């Protein structure tokens, strides 16, 4: 069995709104698969249908080769879930929380081992309500591991965390990958998808607009380079006919196709444009891929 998750022609309507529109994907065993999309793209809807929490309007989800609608207990035994914006029981300790969830399953993984894996040893006997946001999310991931699941669903595991806490959660997820777990995660942070995922699907308005490894996506849809000039006269620079992507305060972001184009920009900016204070150049990333494909920024959709 190569594909442990198979989503076929999935559609979900909420009244008139089409949240997921004829979406199909297959996820291989042992893969970290990331759903990248802005708020309201349909990530949670899709994932929660896979987890059996929501019912599709049409289409189907197969887990381990078997159609799953939430009923089958033997499939529930084999999946681990972290819902979006999950909060656990306030007055249970980390250990008690994990023990609580573990009691529901036949298959169990040693709780101390999970605590060590998620780097929660120090917090073992702390009440959940006293943990920081990052630790809470790590407990959330730990909670999804108590049954030693074959598939782990993580819905926006790092939203709202500061960069350091985010790295902590990433480290935890990478350890799962090393253990050969299949991970389906959603995010609206392109760094997260780039950093963690073997394969990324960009989802927009309920449809997958592109799918592949970060490299593939960038070479297919994210050609060229981004040049950002800080501390410059943006009004003047904007009139030079460059491919301007963003103007913010006194910085301007441009897109060029070849590295060679950069020298032209620099000399023109210095000669005709009163110069600049500093500059950044980088290869296109998933942000540009998303922009190229949808005409919108990932951030733009970020309402939180």
């Amino acid at each position, binding site marked *: 069995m190569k594909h442990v998750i198979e989503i076929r022609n999935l559609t979900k309507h909420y009244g008139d709104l089409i949240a997921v529109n004829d979406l199909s994907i297959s996820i291989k065993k042992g893969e970290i698969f990331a759903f990248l999309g802005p708020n309201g793209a349909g990530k949670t809807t899709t994932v*929660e249908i896979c*987890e*059996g*929490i*929501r*019912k599709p309007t049409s289409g189907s989800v197969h887990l381990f080769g078997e159609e799953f609608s*939430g009923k089958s*207990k033997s499939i*529930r*035994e084999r*999946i681990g*879930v*972290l*819902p*979006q*914006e*999950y*909060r*656990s*029981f306030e007055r249970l300790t980390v250990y008690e929380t994990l023990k609580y*969830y573990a009691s*529901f*399953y*036949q298959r169990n993984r040693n709780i101390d081992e999970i605590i060590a894996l998620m780097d929660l040893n120090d917090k073992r006997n702390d009440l959940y309500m006293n943990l920081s946001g990052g630790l809470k999310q790590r407990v959330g991931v730990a*909670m999804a591991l108590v*049954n030693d699941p074959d598939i782990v669903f993580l819905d926006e595991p790092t939203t709202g965390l500061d960069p350091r806490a985010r790295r902590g959660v990433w480290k935890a997820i990478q350890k799962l990958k090393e253990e050969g777990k299949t991970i389906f995660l959603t995010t609206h942070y392109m760094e997260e998808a780039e950093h963690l995922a073997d394969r990324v699907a960009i989802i927009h308005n309920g449809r997958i607009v592109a799918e592949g490894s970060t490299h593939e996506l960038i070479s297919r849809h994210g050609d060229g380079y981004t040049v950002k000039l800080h501390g410059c006269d943006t009004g003047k620079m904007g009139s030079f006919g460059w491919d301007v992507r963003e103007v913010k305060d006194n910085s301007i972001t441009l897109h060029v196709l070849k590295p060679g184009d950069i020298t032209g920009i620099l000399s023109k900016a210095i000669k005709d444009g009163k110069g600049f204070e500093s500059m950044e150049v980088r290869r296109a990333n998933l942000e540009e891929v998303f922009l190229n494909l949808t005409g919108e920024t990932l951030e733009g959709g970020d309402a939180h």
Partner: protein
Amino acid sequence: MRPVAIITDFMANVKMWYRSKGTVFWAIAFPVLLMLLFGAIFQGQDDVTITLYVQDMDNTDTSEMFISSLEERLKIESIPDDVEFDGYISDNNIRAALVIPQGFENTVQSASMGSNDSLYIILSLDPTRESINGMIRGIVGGTLQGWNMDITGGRNVLIYGEESITAREFKFIDFFLPGVIGITVMTSSIYGTIFRNTKYKKWGILRKLSTTPFSRWEYLVSKMLFMTFVSFVSTFVIIIVGVVVWDIRVIINAYLFVIVTSAAFAFSGMGMLISRFVKEEETADSAGGAVTFPQMFLAGTFFPLEMMPAYLGQIARVLPLYYVNEGLRDAMIHGNNTGAMYNTAIIFTIAAVLFVLGALMTTWTE
């Protein structure tokens, strides 16, 4: 001091206050509800229909006349003259009764012709209802006095006497203790269930649980065990305080257990039904208040139903808490097993219906 800042902050508070329906409920609807409820309850003092049971052992025209003079101000029900008085009033849970002894007519007639005869008219009253007893006492005493005036111009021919219906002396606290158990089980079960359900829904705990092999029914059973446990802890504490501090004699029997358990189920079921429609934690408060407060005041927790106007008494009879209170009083205080059984049967049925409905309406997923 910057007035603009103060005004801005004040306006922001007004806006947020107005937008949070729960707080508005507490600030406005709650006092209004209290005013209306208490107003209705105490206004009723003037025109309550008080029932007096009368056993006419004389069965003469004169005794009938006496009964009709009482009937002007009381609702009279009759006790057959061939039953044993004490047994009858305890079996039927009668709280105020009067016996017209045999020889009533003879005494009245001979007294009016100048004899020295006199006769005790004994009124039996339930001491837990002191406020009502006062009214009955006044009416019966007044009627007797009127008759004495008519017969002899004032000599006490018909002498007023009084005894307690039960052998024991009951006080208000005897009436109150079962009511405290009732409201405690009600509020903890309803609020506990609503808060748990709305919180767990919001936090994603219910969604998370739905992806585990733990079933909704297993969850419900464990929650009910828990609510029942909490209800018994409260009941136990209330009884201990009642016994130790107020020296209440409490009867502990199977009815008590069945009623408290049924109450926990009935009110948790009610909580489940409510949380089905309440989406936010803030509204949970007002929804809980909306079902608990009317019951608290109308179901005979603080005042006997007889003190209220009849229409409020009718409302009480559709409130589950009324049967809990009455059943607990019959079982724990009065030792009235017939009444306890009747109320237990009703609350048990209500519990079954509310719990099953609540359980069916509770969903973890969409």
